[in-house]
Every structure is written in C-alpha cells, then in structure tokens.
C-alpha cells in the first residue's frame, strides 16, 4: 500500500489550499479528486472576493496561500466595494475567468514537488492505529497519518431541476457515493444542505443596449501582496431587472418549484435564495436586480446573477425571456438546485481537526459553509494544522481578533450553523482592525512561522514594515508654520495652527489625507500607495483602533485560559444543567470560546474560570 504523509480528499478551493500548504511545509501529499477537470472549479458565480470575502482572500494570501495570486492573475476586472463607507468595510471583488482559474491552479499543483495530484474517488476511510487508510472506487488503497476531507458539495449530491432529480455533482461532474456512509461509520452525524446556481446564457442572445454596463475600477491593485501589476479591465458586467411578467410566470408555476412544494429537504441559505423564494418573501418588490457576468474570456457563456432557481427547464426559459434585454436569450446551461451531505462543524476543534479522531481534518463546504473564499480559508488552516500535526507541533488557531478566518472558524465550530455559512463583515466584531489592506501585517509573521511564507514574500513584508516606520517618523517631525502651510490648510478648508505642527496633526484633520501632504510637501516620494494608505488609516482612525485593541485585550484574558481536553464538566457545582450539556458537547478549547456558546451565561463562565484555574494548579 502506498503511503503518504497526508492525503487531501477533494481538489476544490479548500483542497487546493490544504494540499499546497502541506506540501510547502515539506510533507509528501496525495491530492485526490473525482475529476481532474474539476480542480479549483468555480461552480457558481465567476467571481472571487466581495464583502468580507475579499478580506478572506487577502488573509489566505498573507498566510502564503494561492487563491489571491491566481485570482489576480485571472481577473477580468476588479472593484473595491464600499468606497466611502470607511476602510473597515472595503472589500475587493474580482470577476474571475473560470477556465483560466482552473488551469492556473492545476498548473501550480502540478509543479509542486511534494504534491501528487491524482484522479480518484474516495469511497471509504478507515483507521489503522494512527494511520488512516483511504480506498478509492477502483479499489486502490493509500495510507497516511493525516487526512484532510474537502469534498465540497459532492457527498451524495443530487441536482434538482423541476421534477428531475439526478445523482450527480455540480455541473454534471460525478458525485461522491459511499464516503458519506463511511463517515457515518466513523461516528459522524451528517446534515443535508442545499444551494443552487442560475442559468448560463449565450452572449450573442443578450440585448446589452437595454442594460447598464459595469466596468471594473481603473488603477486598482489585487488581493495578493505579491501582485505588482495593476489589474486590467478586460470584461464588463451588466445590470438588468426582472419584470412583472417574470413575477407572474413564477407565481403561476409555484407548484412546480421543488423548493416551495417541499420536494427539497436540504436547508438552503437565506442570503442566496432562489428567485421564486425572493418573489414570495418580498411580494411587494416590483422588480429584482440581476447581473450578467462573463464566465471566461474563451467562452461566450454568461452567468445570470440573482436568478438562481430549481424550476422545470421549460419554465426557466419563459422566466428568463421575460427579463429586460433577455427576450431572445439562448440558455446554454439550466439553473439547478443541489442537495448534499455535510458534517456538523461543532464536531471540530478550532484547528479543524475532528474532536473524535486525531489527524482527521475537515475543510470547506463539507463543514456547512458556502463560498470559494470560505473554503479556501479553511483549506489553508486545515492544511497548516495537518502539517503541524505531522511534525508534532502545536496547532494554529487564529483568533477572532486576528482574522476573518478566525471569526469564520470560531463561529462554525462554536455555534454550528443551520444553513450554508457565508462570511459577512457584520459577523466580525473587530472589523476596524481586520481590514483588507492590513491582512499582510496581521498574518505574514504567522505564515512565516509555519513555513508557508517564502523568503521573497517575507523580504517584501519586512521592507514594507520598514517603510511604514519611516513614514511614521516623518509624520512626527515638527515643522514651523509658514505661509505655505497656512495656505495648505486654507485650501483644504481647515484652520491652521499658530506655531509649529507635525504632519501627523495635519493628517488628523478631516479634510486632509496623506496624499494631500505628499503632493504639497513632496514627502514620501519613494513610498507605494499601499503603504501610504495603511499609515493614513492608522493615523486617522487611531482613537477607534485603540478602542478595539482595548476590547480585544479584555477578551483575550478569557481566550488565554485554556481548558484541558479531558475536563469533566459534570462534576462542577454551580454550573446550570444547560451549560453543562452544551459545554460537554462543544468542548471549548478556552474560556473565550466557552463564553460564546449559546446557553452559557457569564455567571457560568465565572464559575468555570475558578475550576479551570484550580485544575491548572
């Protein structure tokens, strides 16, 4: 039997990051996928990033992951969302070339020396001491100490279009049959979730003159801190709307919609409802907006965002044709809903390792999440931790105050989820610190410590930090008030101080930013936009950043109190029964996590802290 250090099952966005992380940490990896043509496949919308998701991509990048680099390389356009709403909520969103993305990621996997990419469907996992034995559908067996499961939406998946149900994976790829049963045999409880994807249309059939064109931003950088070039604007998106006619067609055919008639049992996400759900729930809305997005440069297919449905194919056609500008639309692929098995993520530690079985890790949609970025984020963490597990080192847990990745993982393993979990900026309490622009400052050192950040990336990072320190120094320099300075203030509708002033003080004024100072006084000439922007935010938001840092410090007091693995909650006097049960089920790793379990009160945490500290003595 062939043996590897670790086996990663699934080469979607989670599996690719997990496999690369493991291989780059020096482990010999087998990466198994049902189809080599489905590697890093963008099964739904041809886009990467977006609110909160953009932060995730930059965080993956800062840790030394691949998603950001390839998204930048294959972007058709890039936009910064939420400009003007403050730096905390600004996120990058790329329109990605789905074919190029797949090809580029596959190339990277193929050129990784410790990584063995192979087509093969895993149907069984069994245990042999601390080894896991993985069996494929053709009877091949492989052995490894660590396994990462990243099966996406493939587990016993079923595609639903009207009355038609087919046991396949997304986009007609084969589904995974048998592995679910194997997981149940290992003692895992499985949930059934649902998601969906809209129709794809032929570009030539669309009347763009009736739609609003949306281009990407000019002069915009990418997700990755290693991407030097600006992202070019290669393709446009188009905004259009449903009509009353669309709504009537849907209303008249609701009995044929499986999601409404109860034929679909899987739990679908609230944030991604089908068009029929939208029309029922928001009956008084006269029209719904839809976006047409290019799928790739080498195809005429376009994705109709906002029009996810599981209606029968003939009704879908009627519905699409009633949309403004789509009167003659040629459907190339039908919309479908997909049901699939996933695990209950509360069975995982915040390391993404299964509590029950050491060395077995889970990442991506199998954990009940949704989205490429969420998957990639878990993938890199699962990969890192599988790697650390193999070398017997302490595993990595990113805190809620470290990264969106930390928020994501803490949420799902602590609270579980009853719908596919999507990252949102609203979920992060330390949003002002967890910004798109500073992901590198937050996470590069962590990536370096685990061995994922290479010398070149680290050199660039250190240089950036040095630059920032230099800028700070210049900002603290005092300058005498001159006529030039008085005029500068006047020009920006601010009143000038009397004697001397630091650039830092100027920067604190509402109407003056660091780029105004650069232009007027010729300072910081050798500094990148990126670096200046970081310093600009740091100074302007100093007070609020400090406030959040203080909150974090308070929260960390509990976060630092670790709860032993074998801690017995049942013997603790003073804990309410509900709290005892919840704590025993979730088995939090520290007091902080304990305090976030629903049903555990502050008084319970207070009681617990006494016992935990006692146990430590």
């Amino acid at each position: 039997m062939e043996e590897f250090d670790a086996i990663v099952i699934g080469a979607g966005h989670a599996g690719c990051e997990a496999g690369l992380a493991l291989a780059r940490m020096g482990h010999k990896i087998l990466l198994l996928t049902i189809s080599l043509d489905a590697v890093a496949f963008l099964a739904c919308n041809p886009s990467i990033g977006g609110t909160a998701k953009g932060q995730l991509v930059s965080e993956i990048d800062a840790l030394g992951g691949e998603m950001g680099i390839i998204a930048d390389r294959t972007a058709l356009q890039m936009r910064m969302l939420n400009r003007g709403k403050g730096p905390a909520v600004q996120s990058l969103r790329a329109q990605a070339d789905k074919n190029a993305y797949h090809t580029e990621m596959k190339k990277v996997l193929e050129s990784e020396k410790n990584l063995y990419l192979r087509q093969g469907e895993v149907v069984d996992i069994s245990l042999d001491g601390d080894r896991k034995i993985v069996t494929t559908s053709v009877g091949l067996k492989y052995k490894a100490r660590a396994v990462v499961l990243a099966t996406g939406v493939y587990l016993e998946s079923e595609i639903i279009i009207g009355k038609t149900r087919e046991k396949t994976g997304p986009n007609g790829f084969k589904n995974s049959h048998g592995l679910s049963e194997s997981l149940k045999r290992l003692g895992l409880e499985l949930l059934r979730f649902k998601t969906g994807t809209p129709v794809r249309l032929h570009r030539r059939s669309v009347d763009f003159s009736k739609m609003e064109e949306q281009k990407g931003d000019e002069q915009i950088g990418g997700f990755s801190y290693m991407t030097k070039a600006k992202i070019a604007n290669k393709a446009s998106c188009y905004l259009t709307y449903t009509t009353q006619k669309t709504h009537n067609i849907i209303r008249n055919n609701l009995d044929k919609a499986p999601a409404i008639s109860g034929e679909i049992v899987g739990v679908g996400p609230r944030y991604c409802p089908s068009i029929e759900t939208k029309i029922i729930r928001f009956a008084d809305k006269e029209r719904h907006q839809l976006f047409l997005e290019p799928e790739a440069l080498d195809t005429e297919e376009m994705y109709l965002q906002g029009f996810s449905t599981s209606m029968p194919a003939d009704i879908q056609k009627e519905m699409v044709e009633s949309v403004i500008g789509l009167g003659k639309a040629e459907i190339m692929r039908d919309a479908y809903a997909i049901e699939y098995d996933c695990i209950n993520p509360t069975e995982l530690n915040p390391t993404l390792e299964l509590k029950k079985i050491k060395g077995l890790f889970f990442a991506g949609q199998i954990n009940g999440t949704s989205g490429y970025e969420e998957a990639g984020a878990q993938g890199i963490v699962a990969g890192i931790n599988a790697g650390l597990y193999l070398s017997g080192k302490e595993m990595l847990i990113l805190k809620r105050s470290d990264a969106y990745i930390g928020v994501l993982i803490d949420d799902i393993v602590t609270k579980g989820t009853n719908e596919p979990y999507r990252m949102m900026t609203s979920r992060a309490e330390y949003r002002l610190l967890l910004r798109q622009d500073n992901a590198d400052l937050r996470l590069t050192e962590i990536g370096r410590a685990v061995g994922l950040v290479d010398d070149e990336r680290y050199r660039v990072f250190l240089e950036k930090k040095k630059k920032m320190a230099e800028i700070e120094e210049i900002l603290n320099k005092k300058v005498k008030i001159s006529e030039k300075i008085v005029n500068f203030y006047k020009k920006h509708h601010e009143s000038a101080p009397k004697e001397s002033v630091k650039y830092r003080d100027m920067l604190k004024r509402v109407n003056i930013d660091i780029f105004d100072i650069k232009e007027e006084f010729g300072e910081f000439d050798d500094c990148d936009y990126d670096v200046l922007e970081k310093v600009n935010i740091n100074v302007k938001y100093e007070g609020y950043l400090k406030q959040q840092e203080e909150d974090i410090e308070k929260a960390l007091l509990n976060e630092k109190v670790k709860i032993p693995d074998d801690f017995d909650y049942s013997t603790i006097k003073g804990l309410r029964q509900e709290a005892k049960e919840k704590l025993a089920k979730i088995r939090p790793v520290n007091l902080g996590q304990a305090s976030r379990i629903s049903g555990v009160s502050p008084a319970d945490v207070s009681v617990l802290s006494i016992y935990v500290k006692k146990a430590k003595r």
Partner: protein
Amino acid sequence: MNSIVSISTPLGKGAISIVRMSGKDSLKIALKIFHTKSKEIKPRYMCFGKLEVEKEVFEECLMVYFKAPYSYTGEDIVEFQIHGGVLLAQKVLERCLSNGCRLAEAGEFSKRAFLNGKITLDKAEAIIGEINAESEAELNSSLKITNGKLAQKVEEEQRKLTELLAEIEVSFDYPEMDYEEIVKKKIFDSLEEIKAENDRIIASSESSLYLRNGINVAIIGKANVGKSSVLNALLGEDRAIVTDIEGTTRDSLKESFLHKGVKINLIDTAGIRQTEDVVEKLGIERSLDSIERADIVLFVHDGSDGESEADRHLNRIVQGKNIINLINKTDKPRVLKKLKNEIEISALTQKNIDKVKDKIVDEVIDKGIDANALILSNERQLAILKKCDEIINEILQAEEMSGDVISMLIKNLWKELGKITGNTENEDIITMIFSKFCLGK
C-alpha cells in the same frame, strides 16, 4: 485588573457602613476623595479624615488601607468606615465609581481572593452558589414596578438599534443591491430619540427615587376607623431614628420611618390628624392628592362593621392603585367580608404592624433582595445609561465619521444598553438583514 467597589455592610439601621475597594488603583482613587491630616497612609492602620461625599460636603470617616498581597483579595484594598444610613453609603459608592472604580460583580471579591491564592477552593465553592443566585436575581430585577418598565424600554431601544444596524450593515455586505442607503439624518434622529429617553430615565430614575425619597404611603379610610392610630402604630418607636437624610426641611405633611433599610413616607399625615372626622368636607381634596402621589395605599377598614357607602366611594377613588387593606379593630368579632390583599391588625395592641411594614416593602421591592442589592443594581443601571449617552454624543458630534465607525459605535451602544437586562450578544442583526431585505445571487 480594574479596581472594584462595593458596599460591604448590609444597609439599614446599622451605626456604620463599610464601602470597600479592591484593585491596584484603590488607594489612588481613595485619596482623590478622602482628605486626612495624617502624613502617611500606613497599611493596616486606621486613619481619620474627611470624605468629600458631594462637592464641598464632607463627612467624617475612617479609612484603612491593606497593601497587596496582605489583604482579603490579595490586591490593594481600601475600606471606608462611614456613618450608617442608606444614602450616605450610596453617595460614597457613587464617588468611588466616578473616580475610576467599577462596581463589583456578585462574588467578585471572593473570586479575586481565590485567584490570588488567598482562599481555598472549598471556600470559593461556597461562594459560587452566590454568584449564580445573585446574578440571576439581578437579572430578574430587584424592583418590581420600575425594573419591568426599564427592561421593556431597554428591549425596545435595542430593537430600534438592531433595525438601524441592519439597515447600515446591509449596505456594507450587499453594496450592489438597489436599496436606498440609510441616510445619516435617520441614524442621528433615532439616536437623539434614544438619548432623550435615557435622559428621562436618568432624571427620574424611579428606582432611585424609592431609595432617595422612600416609598410613599397614603392612609385612607372612613371617619373614626382609626387612621390616626394606625399612623402612630407604624411610626411607633421607630420615629426617633428617622432623620431627614436629604437635608430639606421636613414636610409637615410627611412623616417617615425606616424599615429594612428603606425609607417609608406616610404622606398627608397632617391631613389625617386634622381631618379625622371630616373626610368628606375638609380633607377630601387633600386626600385625593395624597392618593395620587402614593406608591401604596393603606385602606383602613373597621372589621366589626359592614361595608359602608363611604367605603364604596373611597374604593372608586383608589381604583388602580396598589392597595393593602388593613382590617382594624380585630379585638371585636369580624363582620366585614374577606377583602383582597388584607391584613388583620390592631392599632391598639400593635398586632401585625410589622407585617404591614414588611408588606409595604415587599410590594415595591422583590422579596429576598435587600436594599444593598437594590442600590447596587440601581447604580449600575444609571452608570450604564450615562455611558450610553456618552457613546451617542460621540456619534452625534463627529459629523464626518465614516459608516464603519458609526456602526461600531452603535454596536457598542447596543451592548452597553444590554448590560441592564443581561442581553449583550446581538445575533439578530443578520437575521434582521435577511428578513428585511431581499438579497442574494
């Protein structure tokens, strides 16, 4: 760790009260309000001085300083020993709070003692029960009448804020959606409203009024039923210890006594004394007014007599008030039918008079909560509301503030408000976003 403060002695008739602080800033805070002629503060020695309880109002006071680690908690501890009485202790507590202390949570002194290795786990375990019991009692609110209302208001304000947040947040998480973006004016208007409401609560701070001003009790009843003797029985020997804590001239119409540390005011006593025989004529207006102001009405009946026209008339007047029916003259055979919420008494023999006093306090304040807990929860609430106002002011003053910061501050505000009812985890914003807005791919 923060310095914490609490009133350590039960409040009430005690001759002294102790207010205790623990934490590294205890001495620093103490010396801001305590003035002494002693040249140095020697640990574990009593020190005489004056405590500034209000601006330029001083009280004599003894202070002891325990230097860490030689103290109960293992931290620096300062104790003030002051004259007894509810209000004085409360004022000293307030002064400590406004100088940088935070109110101790239930069992917190002991918890710190345990964590610093000063007491054993056995001892700590005994306290654990208290931590739960007290925090629960506090959440269940100590004042029946006012806290129910306050909790309701807090919930309402939190709901308003959640709606506001949902509207702000949806624009962050779904920038591409065609919803009209929330305008700053709407945010500001809502916050102004909340602030106005908070200010009303702070100003009236009803729960605080009970403590400062006492529970107002009116005694009514038809002529010759014995109102005057009930009044005297209630005042009884306690009268001597009633002092005017507020320092205003005594209202000739009001006589007060302390019970379980709570002041009870018998209002319109002059009216009772003068109009014993002429309720219908002279006293009627005055009685109406006193009923209006009363938290509790003591309705005195003659047990040896049936219900009269005058009783029925009075019954109509006091409708909707919190009434305790006192059946007087129980030395004679009972003729009067059984009444709701009644106590049989005898003003002559003092029978059940203490029961009446207990009942008055119990009607307003939850059973099992002493005045101590009551003051603490009240102070805590006021401190929270004031902090909320600060946050609102911060938002209102910074017109150029970007959306992300406004949202952060509103979330802080939501959390702060929730401390009153114990609801500080807002999991509803996202639910609200999805129920209010139609979103998705």
